[in-house]
């Protein structure tokens, strides 16, 4: 019997070791798997590479993981949001490595990895510093930059409903990075509001099929 349900948050992230690469859903606070991030802090893995749109704001979630000194490098698109004080201080003290990626390129690099594709050409960033050192080409008069697929060991995902097979739905715009990160990570771990009996989620409303998901845990299941 397939059962991807994990009894608590701490156990859900217990497979994440030192030095792991971890994708984290969220666009600001929308879609951020805050409970899984707090469990990861309790778990203690360090020297992590985080892949996420932003670099945390305030004092909880991603900012708390950064403040705990667990992150060696962050790959993101927009780390300078208001309230990103933890990241800003680490960046100025050169205590964190930053790889800045245009958002559509970050998404497509993950999607390519999950979809079994190799490097791909995108017009985004052509003629800018982002393209430096990368192969470039002109097709039909338009310039393109060659970008590489991006995989990760883990993805921490905020979803809404799940079943024991790992099928997921999302609330509103919390969907965001969930579908591509589940595809691109070796082990996708989803925190959800509720776990429903198999068959209760209408199949056509499932956004991420369970084949992409390894672990599901209720967000209120405690550490």
């Amino acid at each position, binding site marked *: 019997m397939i059962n991807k349900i994990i009894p608590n948050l701490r156990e859900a992230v217990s497979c994440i070791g030192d030095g792991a690469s971890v994708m984290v859903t969220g666009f600001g606070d929308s879609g951020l798997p805050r409970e899984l991030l707090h469990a990861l802090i309790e778990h203690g893995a360090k020297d992590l590479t985080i892949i996420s749109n932003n670099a945390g704001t305030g004092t909880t979630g991603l900012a708390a993981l950064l403040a705990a000194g667990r992150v060696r490098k962050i790959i993101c698109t927009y780390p300078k949001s208001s309230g990103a004080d933890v990241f800003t201080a680490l960046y100025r003290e050169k205590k964190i490595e930053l790889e800045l990626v245009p958002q559509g390129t970050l998404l497509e690099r993950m999607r390519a990895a999950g979809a079994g594709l190799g490097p791909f050409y995108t017009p985004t960033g052509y*003629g800018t510093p982002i393209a430096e050192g990368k192969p470039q080409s002109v097709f039909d008069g338009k310039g393109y930059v060659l970008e590489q697929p991006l995989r990760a060991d883990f993805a921490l995902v905020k979803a809404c409903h799940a079943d024991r097979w790992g099928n997921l739905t999302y609330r509103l715009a919390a969907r965001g990075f969930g579908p591509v990160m589940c595809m691109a990570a070796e082990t996708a771990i989803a925190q959800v509001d509720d776990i429903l009996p198999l068959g209760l989620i209408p199949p056509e409303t499932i956004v991420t099929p369970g084949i992409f998901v390894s672990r599901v845990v209720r967000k209120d299941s405690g550490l």
Partner: protein
Amino acid sequence: MSNLKKLSRDCVAQQVAADIPPGSYVNIGLGMPTLVAKYLDPAKEIILHSENGILGIEDVTPGDPGDEDLINASKARLQLIRGAAICDQSLSFAMMRGGHLDATILGAFQVASNGDIASWSTGDTEAVPGIGGAMDLVAGARKVIVVMEHTTRDGQPKLLRTCTFPLTGKAAVDVVYTDMAVIDVDPQRGFVVRAMAEGLTRAALEAATDAPLAYADDLFFI
């Protein structure tokens, strides 16, 4: 420079809003562009796109706390309009990069007369840089509309022969709305002034711009 006749931010936003054709799908970026949404005529059914995967947004009704999982690129809470659609973020960026958006309205540090735009870094190594969706928008939207002050706070031109800051995109900008003028970017002629603030002289506009200016035959005053 204080005696220069300048347009208010609201007046600039009204100009931009009036020029968006009915039925357009439009992305609105951070800063001054957000004001444009306030002046769009609902009867024109202009559908606003948010890069995190939403088509069909509006400001939250006053008094409504909104929802953490429903925000725009400025990370402000918003609400869905009737007919709105939500998708995952890679599909949202396919809309942007794939030429499906009719227009993107964004701010900039600098715009050059060949359409180059610099909007994400001033080269200051102490400042945290941020690209977000800007490079995808200028690479893919059918029309790239920049809304910004004509000069920096200390009076330095932001419309230039060549951008000095790192680029967001090359030859991308179609039109620039500033507090002094509306300026089209023509591949052959460079900056072509379409409209300027009432009471502003051509000499004053040219002094605030570090690139040659041409003037449209049907130039008008705002």
